[in-house]
């Protein structure tokens, strides 16, 4: 709106210059999109300066947030509004809303980006949506309070974890049938495949562990435990998980223990605990994977961890109750 007014006054050439200029400033640096559950906004940070570029109003209770495979859009689930906001990563505006059914908490996309998988937390469902048309393909009943979703690299399997049923449900994307239901420790939050697809890791917030599941046999092959000197066990609540590209290291955010664990993903030994902000929730890598970004729910900031040195470099403020982060290169 102001831009159009400016065009009328100053002429098209000037407006073009302004647009080019503003794009020149944003070009090059990657951007972080942080969902703020309480503010009903997404904060956009510059990936080099970590300055706030924009605060985008969303619908109510934004939580799960991902970038599309082509990085053209960032999708965020609005739990209390029953839809997904589609944010154009060029204009930083919500350009579309997709109906998801009640209480979408998190989402994932098929590898090609044609389908969206949404966990409907209050309805114990996974809703499968055609991204292009917004039409629902199917709904799959799963355990109570479904949350984290993982999609295998070949797109054949979708895994959803249910917090109150404490299971990882394996869904065949050809038949939309459940092929296995693996009981894990209490209140699972996130499922993620290892880069080589050989294992699926599931974090259990209240159980305080991470289960390593063989996705072929659907058996738990290892359970990772955490012991932090001076921190009571009941405060250790694993949530977010990310692997380095070579699959050698895993990072796990530990909720109220206010730390991120660094785990040797081959031996399952915890190598280090990195102190971050309060109640770290979801974590994600920078586009070049040199930094790890941690959304701290209670201190309303994002901690940046240098992956090479395994040190927390700094924390930058975002909105209230930051939940998750998506990165655009």
């Amino acid at each position, binding site marked *: 709106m102001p831009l159009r007014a400016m065009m009328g006054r100053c002429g098209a050439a000037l407006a073009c210059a302004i647009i080019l200029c503003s794009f020149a400033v944003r070009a090059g640096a990657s951007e972080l999109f942080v969902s703020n559950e309480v503010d009903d906004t997404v904060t956009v940070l510059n990936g080099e300066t970590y300055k706030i570029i924009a605060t985008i109003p969303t619908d109510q209770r934004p939580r799960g947030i991902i970038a599309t495979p082509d990085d053209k859009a960032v999708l965020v689930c609005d739990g209390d509004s029953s839809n997904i906001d589609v944010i154009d990563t060029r204009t930083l505006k919500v350009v579309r809303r997709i109906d998801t059914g009640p*209480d979408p908490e998190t989402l994932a996309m098929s590898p090609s980006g044609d389908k969206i998988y949404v966990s409907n937390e209050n309805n114990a469902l996974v809703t499968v949506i055609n991204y292009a048309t917004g039409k629902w393909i199917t709904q799959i009943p799963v*355990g109570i309070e479904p949350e984290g979703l993982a999609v295998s690299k070949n797109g054949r399997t979708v895994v959803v974890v249910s917090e109150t049923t404490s*299971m990882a449900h394996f869904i065949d994307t050809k038949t939309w049938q459940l092929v296995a239901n*693996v009981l894990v420790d*209490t209140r699972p939050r996130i499922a993620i495949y290892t880069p080589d697809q050989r294992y699926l890791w599931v974090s259990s917030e209240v159980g305080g562990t991470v289960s390593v599941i063989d996705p072929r046999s659907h*058996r*738990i092959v290892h359970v990772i435990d955490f012991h932090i000197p001076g921190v009571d066990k009941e405060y250790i609540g694993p949530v977010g998980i990310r692997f380095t590209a070579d699959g050698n290291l895993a990072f796990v955010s530990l909720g*109220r223990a206010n730390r991120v664990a660094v785990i040797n993903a081959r031996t399952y030994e915890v190598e280090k605990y990195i102190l971050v902000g309060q109640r770290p929730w979801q974590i994600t890598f920078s586009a070049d994977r040199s930094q790890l970004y941690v959304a701290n729910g209670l201190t309303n900031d994002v901690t940046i961890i240098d992956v090479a040195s395994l040190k927390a470099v700094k924390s930058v403020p975002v909105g209230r109750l930051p939940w998750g982060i998506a990165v655009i290169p």
Partner: protein
Amino acid sequence: MLVRRAAPALGLLTLVLLAGVSSAFAAPAAPGRSAARSFAITLLREEYHFNPEILPSLLETHPADLGLAGAEEAIYELNTAGKFIGWHFKLAVVTVPDGGNVAATADRLLAHGPTVIIADLRADDLLTLANLPAAKNALILDMRTSEDLLRQQDCRTNVFHLLPSQAMRTDAIAQFLVLKRWTRWFLIQGPTPQDAVYAADVRRSAARYGARVVAEKTYNYDAGSRRSDTGYQQIQTQMPLATEVSADYDVIFVADESDLFGDYLPYNTYAARPVVGTQGLVASAWTPAYQEYAALQMQQRFDLFAHRGMTERDYGGWLAVRIVGNAVMRAGKTSPLAMRTYLRSSDFLVAGYKGQGLTFRTWDNQLRQPVLLSQPLMTVSISPQPGFLHPGYTTDTLGFDEPETQCRFAQ
């Protein structure tokens, strides 16, 4: 009326089938498959006479399914999980009429051997049930009481308490007051024996945390003016009189377990001081307003199911069923005795929307848990408060800790 129990042979079979469940258990989805094993839970309640006229506020309600709805919601949740791994849970509700014979009913329930009983009973009836010879090897989950005595001298090995004791509640409030440096308390207590216990807990909390009870008064409110048109005028003259003391204090700590007058205190006190205790800022395991630690999901789910807010007693019933579910599906325990051992072991925990796993204290079978501090529409805080530390669990700063317990389980 009587509960259908799983045949003993079936119980044995389930144990065999579930061997190895703790490491991993996976099975194809089998909704409605006939091979599902079933597990029966009994909920024993007495229909105590209740006169809604005695509730001081019109906003207070007394739904007929109080507590029960929580257990039923949890059964639905267990069966959602159970259908994926071949378990089906059944809740048999046995209601004793007001003044009925709890012992005789329980004896009938226990006639075929020990079983799992969720008790929605008052303290005296709970103790009657626990003392029955037939209940010796049963598992009784107490979803209702908070009486200290049941966790102290009257503790029983077959009873597990899910809601916070009175002492846990006064400690939860006390920690908050000490954190606020509101350490001079005026204690006003009602006429009942439970009020006296609560008042003793307030004194104990003060001594524990370095606060002081600077004034005390016993008050017996004559309920004659309740819900009459001139009620507030009576209250407005009576409450300042009742709260006038010479000592200077920071808060009024009210011990009125029967809701006789506590709710009349806020804004009607002689001095401008906040009210805490059994009314005003109260300590509880749950309130319909609590939404932290994903409790919002539980509240929404319960409202869809019961069409009303979830109370502390509903939460007690919900917890009881979820605990049984963990014992059966997670640990493969189906006999009450094996369950009791499991509940007291380090393998057990139950999630209760408190941001941490809840476990049992082995010295008195009390569920350790964070305790909510609330005013009617809002959660104000959750205790334990920052800085109150414990070598084991910070939640063990609330209530009777191991060194001070009066509970002696006969082994």
